[in-house]
């Protein structure tokens, strides 16, 4: 009997060994969404850059304030024009269709905006009847490939169509294409903060990549600082391009200086010769993202980790810039995931991501104290001026009255339509 048992077991185990080579296999199916571009001709797109009917805010980006108007970027789509003469009841007036738009700046009655790689100058004398004045082709070559695609050069991507596909994981891994590029259209616009530029210039923020100082428009790409002469506001001309290190993120003007945030530090450029900015100082830190604002002797830098920002640092750095070119870290304050920041007098506003908006008393830089935290909003950027703080959050554009710092009130909210 025992022998019979063994005889039965032998073929069984042999069968298992055969199975091991034939059937032992890990299958994996990867279901993902990709986006196909929807094209229009350049002529069609440019003809549509006008004051169109207002649209709902869906994916807000950077904001810019000019007088009683808010210009709110809808990432890759255009600009919402909002009448904010009554911050408690902002009115969405119109929408300017500018595909690929992510940045803007205003001088006088001219708004400068990017349309992928092109720069557009728009007359906003009447924000409800805007007029395109000039388009500089290929002003920003680094924006030429929209969302990682090599777009048809005679066409412009105006939208993306989502498609879902399921393929084997091995096939997906071997595609060789950039996994994230097609999703760039959903990238968040990081916001802004109060600029030192006075009227007639508008106010951008600490997350801006466009800045205007007097008769020059400065824009930063990934590794360059472009200079546009806007002496004739309606007819900008590209003047210069200053090479920078890689990882440039933001630009912030203050008096005759430009503070450029990169993911490894803050660069300070002098505008003594405004057509040819030259580096006069640098503050280096670990690889993280770092929006910056500055005053005469001090710069405030928020360092945050996560996503492409890498690193593990989340803090507010106070940097001494009194003795340029020497810079030194004065003090660091821990934060959760700080983004844009703004300062009005001695009050510092910091968007701390999901931890909300932090309102800080920065009278004494060695002892910055929290006045209050507005929680339950996921904040990206803030512009604080004249007692009203405009906050770009994940779910909309908020306005707070902070004339009484002990009783900050929500004035209004423009919600996001999903």
């Amino acid at each position, binding site marked *: 009997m025992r022998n019979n048992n063994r005889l039965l077991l032998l073929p069984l185990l042999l069968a298992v060994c055969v199975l091991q080579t034939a059937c032992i296999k890990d299958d994996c199916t990867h*279901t993902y969404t990709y986006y196909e571009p929807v094209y229009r001709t350049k002529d069609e797109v440019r003809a549509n850059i006008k004051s169109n009917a207002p649209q709902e805010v869906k994916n807000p980006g950077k904001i810019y304030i000019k007088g009683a108007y808010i210009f709110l970027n809808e990432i890759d789509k255009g600009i919402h024009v909002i009448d904010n003469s009554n911050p408690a009841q902002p009115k969405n007036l119109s929408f300017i269709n500018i595909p690929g738009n992510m940045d803007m700046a205003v001088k006088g009655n001219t708004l400068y905006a990017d349309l992928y790689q092109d720069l557009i100058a728009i007359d906003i004398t009447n924000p409800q009847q805007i007029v395109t004045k000039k388009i500089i082709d290929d002003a920003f070559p680094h924006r030429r490939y929209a969302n*990682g695609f090599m777009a048809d050069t005679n066409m412009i991507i105006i939208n993306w169509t989502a498609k879902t596909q399921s393929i084997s994981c091995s096939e997906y891994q071997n595609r060789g294409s950039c996994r994230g590029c097609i999703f*760039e259209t959903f990238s*968040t616009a990081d916001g802004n903060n109060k600029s030192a530029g006075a009227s007639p210039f508008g106010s951008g923020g600490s997350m801006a990549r466009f800045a205007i100082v007097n008769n020059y428009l400065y824009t930063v790409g990934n590794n360059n600082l472009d200079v546009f002469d806007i002496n004739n506001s309606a007819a900008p001309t590209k003047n210069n391009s200053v090479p920078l290190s890689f990882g440039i993120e933001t630009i912030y003007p203050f008096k005759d200086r430009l503070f450029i945030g990169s993911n490894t530090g803050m660069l300070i450029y002098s505008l003594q010769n405004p057509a040819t900015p030259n580096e006069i100082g640098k503050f280096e830190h670990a690889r993280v993202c770092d929006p910056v604002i500055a005053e005469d002797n001090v710069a405030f830098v928020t360092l945050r980790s996560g996503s492409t920002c890498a690193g593990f640092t989340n803090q507010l750095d106070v940097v001494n810039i009194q003795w340029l070119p020497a810079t030194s870290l004065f003090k660091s304050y821990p934060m959760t995931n700080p983004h844009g920041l703004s300062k009005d007098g001695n009050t510092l506003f910091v968007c701390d991501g999901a931890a909300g908006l932090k309102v800080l008393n920065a009278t004494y830089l060695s002892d910055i104290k929290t006045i209050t935290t507005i929680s339950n909003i996921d904040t990206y950027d803030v512009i604080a001026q004249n007692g009203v703080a405009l906050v770009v959050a994940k779910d909309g554009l908020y306005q707070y009255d902070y004339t009484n710092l002990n009783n900050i009130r929500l004035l209004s909210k423009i919600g996001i339509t999903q």
Partner: protein
Amino acid sequence: MKFICLCLLACINCWGATAQKKVSKFNFQSINEVGFTAGENATRMQFSTSNGIGNKNWYAGLATGMDFYRFRTVPVYTDFRYRFLKGPGQVFAYINTGYHFAWATTNEKVNIWQGSSTVQGGVHFAAGGGYQFNLKNKHAILISAGYSYKRATEKVNLTICGFAGCNPSPVVEEYKYRLRRLSLKVGWLLQ
């Protein structure tokens, strides 16, 4: 893997005589096993306990345990066995059907593409055969080999970053796994 199979064969051939025992018509039986699942990309530990009713040839029970292949899961399944022949040792065949409940570890929930993931369980199926070495005290030692199938779904929340920053809402991508493994177990039968 072939080495493991050869070892199993050697063990069988080296087995000496064991006492034959009487098994009542129906009785409670508990089968506790530990072993490995060996697949295309890894070999991982597994253990299980199956408790049910059996007679001299049949066994039917409900089983659970832990399976560490690709994702940590807790399989809950029905366990049917049939013992062939009689004697101090018996050949048996088994078939299991059930569901793997996901209990992914922290490391398993982190995807290399900058995302966090959630893991969902899936179907469990196993079939195979083995040898039961009956001991004097109604207990038995089991050794078995077979095929084991496990399904799982991983949903990865991707944060995609580009020129202007990162997408405000994570992009969710889905991976469906169908894991076909060789299962090797040793166990203890209590009845």
